[in-house]
């Protein structure tokens, strides 16, 4: 276990993230150009999709059905558990609770990638179709949480009935369109389809870019994530102790649930670890703008700090090995 932790902590990925945090702590002017960050995230998502697609072409539909169901179930359960814990135990308001829940119901692609890398490094590579599951988990969690938020707000204000229903449905349609056609969905799903279509032969000539450069560019991206997380550290105090605990314990709970569902549906140890990580991770790309637009009353400090400055580093440094240990225990 300690060896596993050491491997995880001493990778360029984790250390680049730490470097970003340190740079912010010493108030360095270091900043990656915004266009570089956007370009890196476009690259990572597309490469992830392509690679996943190529490997998907070796998988049978049979293998996927179970894990896919498990993933969708996670997408419905995790936002609800998050919301309830935040409301009942954390005494957060409706909007804030729903906003944070939307983040924890969705998934962080970088954490997902880190888990993929980790399982490969420790010799338990995950199934090839994991990126397909990623696309399945990205959206429903946001949806469910925002719907809860809108409905509860309306109820608490007494505006129910037909009018509200119609407006809810309309804003929901817009939101679903936005999420389905979001950058990450297009690149992931598009990459998956292209990867499946071209197979190994078509993949060969683009492999140097989309596989060879992957870890290096991911390292740069984690540097940026570290910078972003570092500039959120000051907000930890405003977020309070409850959110700190929530950002660590909730992922462990969701991770255990994910690992269990994974093992039930026949995933390997690596696959379980990755599914657990997906369940445990909190989105900070897709969820924030959706929450900002739909529940503007929710305070961004809470959800961004929790997702980016608490849960992301926790998962990166300790979470993934924990989910791996749980998965190993469950699969034997």
């Amino acid at each position, binding site marked *: 276990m300690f060896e596993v932790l050491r491997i995880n902590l001493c990778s360029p990925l984790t250390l680049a993230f730490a470097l970003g945090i340190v740079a912010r702590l010493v108030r360095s002017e270091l900043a990656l150009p915004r266009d570089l960050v956007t370009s890196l995230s476009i690259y990572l998502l597309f490469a992830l999709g392509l690679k996943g697609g190529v490997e998907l072409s070796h998988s049978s539909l049979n293998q996927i059905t179970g894990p896919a169901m498990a993933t969708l179930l996670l997408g419905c359960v995790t936002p609800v558990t998050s919301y309830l814990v935040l409301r009942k135990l954390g005494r957060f308001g409706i909007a804030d609770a729903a906003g944070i829940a939307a983040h924890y119901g969705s998934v962080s692609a970088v954490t997902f990638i880190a888990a993929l890398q980790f399982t490969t490094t420790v010799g338990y590579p995950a199934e090839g179709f994991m990126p397909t599951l990623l696309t399945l988990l990205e959206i429903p969690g946001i949806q469910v949480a925002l719907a809860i938020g809108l409905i509860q707000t309306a109820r608490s204000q007494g505006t129910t009935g037909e009018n509200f229903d119609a407006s809810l449905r309309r804003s929901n349609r817009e939101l679903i369109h936005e999420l389905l056609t979001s950058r990450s969905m297009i690149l992931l799903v598009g990459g998956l389809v292209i990867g499946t279509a071209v197979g190994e032969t078509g993949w060969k000539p683009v492999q140097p870019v989309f596989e060879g450069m992957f870890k290096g560019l991911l390292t740069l991206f984690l540097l940026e994530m570290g910078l*972003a997380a570092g500039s959120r550290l000051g907000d930890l105090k405003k977020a309070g102790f409850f959110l700190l605990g929530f950002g660590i314990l909730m992922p462990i709970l969701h991770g255990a649930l994910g690992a269990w569902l994974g093992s039930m549906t026949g995933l390997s140890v690596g696959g379980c670890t990755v599914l657990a990580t997906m369940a445990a991770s909190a989105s900070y790309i897709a969820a924030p*703008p959706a929450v*900002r637009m739909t529940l503007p009353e929710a305070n961004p400090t809470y959800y961004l700090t929790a997702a980016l400055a608490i849960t992301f580093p926790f998962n990166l440094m300790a979470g993934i090995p924990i989910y791996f240990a749980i998965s190993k225990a469950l699969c034997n």
Partner: protein
Amino acid sequence: MKTVPLCLLTVIAESVLKERLVHDLRSVGARGYTLTDAEGEGSRQRRVGEILGANIRIESIVSPEVADRLLQLISNEYFDRFAVIAYLSTVSVIRGEKYV
């Protein structure tokens, strides 16, 4: 040259609002707009901006009536809940009919 006075409305807002504001402009009757990227700080503290990109700055030359409708709309829909400011000034344009 002969010029006509018109209103120049400037809106500075967090960038998630981009599509909505452009839509609003059109809906109250603005005939065009110009948009630049910006950053900034205001009375409210650092916001969602960081990951989502920072602010946008929208300028639109409009008639006084349209300007008023826009200010009304922005102050009703956005001022409380979003990081938005808006202000008016007077500019002289040629081809005044282009903008109204």
